[in-house]
């Protein structure tokens, strides 16, 4: 098979992995260097950033995960790269500035350790023979041996083991060959190695990025909407992963139908659901929100009409307006329409004596949202300050795009989890209202301390 054909097959097979980040490493080599902030080199027609050459080493797989285009039972063209072939492509693409490096994953075509060793071989050739200093993200295959993992961490900037689904129950139904505990075990092994590499201390900033072993840390991905798990399950799981195994990122990938398997929903979730999960994730990682604050009062799913920060603000109107002339950093970040840049500029303007209501639009705030929640020296921005009532405020803050249905846009409210084709999601129970009932003691969640009072 020609290289071009292989590349097309193995790139198409890898495109379901959402991550393409190249940030977090300061590695340098004879040929190239990682860029700590990451660089996007292209944007494909689906609007995604291409930073790395993201391919599978092979799309042959022994496993049969129902949601995966590469599953053993799928009738798709199969291909595999030779080591030399892939190394040559990476070096050429890198020199031409098409990519920052390589994201290498693979189907499980042999024993996990063998598969990972083959991936290591590619990375080893790049690092040792080519002096490659660009970014390498390697997929860690649960079941691979300690020595193989140890070498992978030295070769790669980032490692990732995909958690795939939010609960062990969903894994048992949709990916019966996979073991949630083995996946979490792999994450713990990676975290342990990173800890060793930092003398047992969780360092931040430059000390973290300059480590030799997986300097950009580890990430994971989970498929959203293939199982009937709620946003609560997902957000709680993500919070536990950040806390327990110190992931740098959790990626969410809206399930895309790849087969007519009755265990799967007949229609994809709206992309809006994926978007809201990323917004919630951002609040947890960057703005000091706890996962419990994201979904309160027993809500199972994120509000499709509002971004999670606005939704939180509307549930806590008693905490507003925030007086910008006095509020500390953490409080500023809780205001809808104020991000880290806006908060920094507010603090700087305060120090320089230049903060006024009139100055707010020049500070980089999203005034459309922020105006309803702030005062400066007791004054509200023009047009705000009166009691609009919750429904009106809600309508003003809504950022829901025009409804187009399916993965293209937003499905009608209430239709987001329902199997519109009448499927049953196999053994996973889907109540008539579309909101699943998940037992509290799911083994995967227990493995991460969820349900033990740790959330």
């Amino acid at each position, binding site marked *: 098979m020609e290289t071009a054909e292989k590349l097309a097959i193995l*790139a198409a097979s890898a495109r379901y992995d959402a991550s393409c980040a190249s940030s977090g490493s300061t590695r340098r080599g004879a040929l190239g260097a990682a860029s700590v902030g990451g660089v*996007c080199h292209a944007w494909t027609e*689906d609007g995604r950033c291409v930073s790395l050459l993201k391919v599978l080493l092979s799309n042959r797989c022994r496993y049969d995960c129902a949601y995966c285009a590469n599953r053993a039972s799928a009738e798709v063209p199969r291909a595999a790269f030779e080591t030399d072939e892939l190394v040559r492509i990476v070096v050429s693409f890198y020199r*031409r500035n098409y990519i920052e490096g390589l994201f290498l994953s693979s189907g499980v075509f042999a024993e996990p350790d063998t598969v990972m060793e083959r991936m290591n071989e590619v990375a080893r050739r790049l690092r040792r023979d080519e002096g490659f200093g660009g970014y390498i993200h390697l997929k860690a295959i649960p079941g691979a041996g300690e020595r193989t993992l140890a070498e992978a961490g030295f070769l790669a900037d980032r490692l990732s083991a995909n958690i795939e689904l939010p609960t062990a129950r969903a894994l048992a139904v949709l990916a019966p060959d996979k073991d949630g505990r083995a996946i979490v075990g792999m994450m713990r092994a990676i975290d342990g190695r990173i800890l060793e590499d930092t003398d047992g201390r969780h360092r931040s900033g430059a000390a973290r990025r300059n480590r030799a072993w997986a300097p950009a840390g580890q990430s994971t991905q989970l498929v959203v909407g293939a199982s009937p798990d709620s946003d609560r399950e997902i957000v709680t799981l993500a919070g536990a992963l950040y806390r327990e195994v110190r992931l740098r990122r959790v990626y969410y990938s809206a399930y895309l139908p790849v087969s007519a398997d009755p265990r799967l929903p007949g229609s994809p979730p709206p992309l809006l659901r994926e978007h809201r999960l990323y917004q919630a994730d951002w609040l947890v990682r960057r703005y000091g929100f706890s996962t419990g604050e994201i979904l309160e009062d027993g809500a199972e799913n994120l509000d499709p009409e509002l971004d999670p920060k606005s939704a939180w603000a509307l549930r806590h109107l008693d905490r507003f307006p925030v007086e910008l002339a006095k509020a500390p950093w953490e409080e500023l970040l809780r205001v809808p329409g104020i991000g880290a840049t806006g908060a920094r500029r507010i603090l700087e303007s305060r120090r320089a*004596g230049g903060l006024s209501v009139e100055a707010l639009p020049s500070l980089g705030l999203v005034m459309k949202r922020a105006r309803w929640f702030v005062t400066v020296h007791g004054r509200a921005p023009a047009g705000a300050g009166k009691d609009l009532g919750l429904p009106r405020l809600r309508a003003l803050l809504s950022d829901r795009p025009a409804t187009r249905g399916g993965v293209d846009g937003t499905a009608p409210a209430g239709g987001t989890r329902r199997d519109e084709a009448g499927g049953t999601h196999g053994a996973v129970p889907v109540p008539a209202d579309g909101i699943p009932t998940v037992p509290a003691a799911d083994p995967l969640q227990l493995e991460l301390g969820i349900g033990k009072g740790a959330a």
Partner: protein
Amino acid sequence: MNVLVHDGDAAGFWALIGLALEEGSCPDSVARTDRQDLFGGRAVPSARSALLASRARVRLELADHRAPDELELARRRGRPVDLACLRLALALDRDGPDAFDRHADPDRRAVRAAADAVRREFHRLEGLLRFKPVSGRAWLATCEPDNELVDLLAAHLAPRFGSDSAGPVPFGVLDLGRCALAGRGPDSRIFTEACRDVEAAASRLAARPAGAPSAPPAAERAPLPLPARSSPRGDGGASGRMDPEARNHEDRDPDEELWRAYFEAASNPVRANPELQRRFVPERYRRHLTEFQAARAPRDEMHPRGEVR
């Protein structure tokens, strides 16, 4: 009316700031021109230029360590904001960091907007430059940025080219609009200089210093089509044709074909969102991007500007 003029380069800009700081006053207007005789403004005396420029940087560094970088970025803006830079420099000299942090001040806003625009385009082009092999072992990328960026881009990209048996690999970034080339020459030195077109850039990158070993390995030697400058508005595109060598070049680069194959396969058609793609890669960058150039470019499909329809 007090008008100061400078020729638009870094030395002139910083000398002007030095003069304003020394005089403690701001001119009514600033012009960028090398024809002071036509403009009638006052220029910094060339004998004092270097001293004034270095003094200005030190003085502003002491006022606020963030200031020199911010002003230098603003200087690179395609639409100059020199007067705002001068007024901000005077305010910084007078008030220290407070002047930098008064985000609502009109001069601070203008300088920040200019510096942010330059930063944004730099980050975009970090990824969106596409290098092609030219003249033996050298690599060249062309662009037409809104702002003055090629030297920054060359410094950032230098590690990407590494070395071969003949030494550090030469490369260049050519700003077709400003006719400026920055990169690393065959003598291993980083440079920025005027350069009129792709052909001149290719020979600059190929020229070997006296006494250097002759012909390097011939790998990837074939020159490949690089676009000439976009036509200025209103000239019907006559000045911006694809260079003749490119037009006649039938052989395509197999790795460019591979990249296009990858680019297409990596996109998920079910999630197609061309509007988002357009936002990230505006049309004006696309003519320099391999992935937006058709795989085959028969001569009759050539757009006058060198674009392929």
